């Protein structure tokens, strides 16, 4: 598995509409909060839009949720916060951002930086 490059685009699938600001359809920092020290993301550089949405629907379905949107961001934002993102397959294209367990202050700042960079995408029906 190739390591994640700085220039890669990653996405976080949004399963909870509370993570979307209605005022300007941007993503909230809550979308980038870790679970047990990890933030689950997908590597989407080079994938077609159709494939990216398909992965998202599979994830949502596995969690009995509906896919609301996805938030695309640059891997360089992660590395810029002295954090790492590692491939973690299966599933294919999956990666994890390593956050700090119990370091709420650090994780909040990381989430803010990711949400500021992220571009929220909605599926075209």
């Amino acid at each position, binding site marked *: 598995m190739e390591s994640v490059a700085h220039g890669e685009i990653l996405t976080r699938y949004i399963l909870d509409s509370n993570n979307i600001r209605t005022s*300007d359809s941007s993503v909230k920092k809550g979308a980038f909060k870790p679970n047990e020290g990890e933030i689950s993301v997908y590597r989407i550089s080079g994938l077609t839009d159709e494939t990216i949405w398909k992965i998202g629907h599979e994830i949502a379905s596995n969690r009995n949720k509906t896919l609301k949107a996805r938030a695309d961001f640059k891997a360089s934002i992660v590395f810029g916060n002295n954090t790492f993102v590692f491939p973690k397959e299966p599933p294919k294209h999956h990666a994890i951002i390593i956050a700090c367990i119990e370091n709420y202050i650090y994780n909040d700042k990381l989430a803010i930086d990711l949400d500021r960079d992220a571009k929220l995408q909605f599926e075209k029906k």
Partner: protein
Amino acid sequence: MNTVLNSYKHFPSNDISGVLSQDALILSKTIEDLNDYLRESITQRNPKDMLFEKIYNVYISALYKNWDGYGGRAITQDTYKEALKLASFLPSFIQNPDIDAESDGCLAFEWYKDRNNNFSLTVYGQQKIIFNGFLGADVLSGNCLLLNYLPEEIENYLIRLVEDK
């Protein structure tokens, strides 16, 4: 809320103290007090009450693990209490923030004008407030103890957020 009100309607209005056990009487009195409180809240809703209610609703929505589909931590009672405490300190010049539960068990207060004018406060049950935000070119980030008043630093940021055009 309506469920409580409706269930109370089924209690007879006449004196029932002679036929109920002490526990039932206590329960009856508790429901009566709650009923009074709810009626009062409905008729005299001020922004602060609405904020408390919003916090309660978010807390309830994230009471159990995996509430968000990403294995999210449940919001603890300590975090909920801290959020109520913080809300009680917020000055009246600022409108109510959005309240969100987050996957790591935090409760976040967010004021968002646009990408470059926003501010958030986060509590997580350890008697601290994390603040982050952007006021024009200024990047705000830090934390402070949750005491019995709103820290001056945070109040000043809220003033700036309101004043910034």
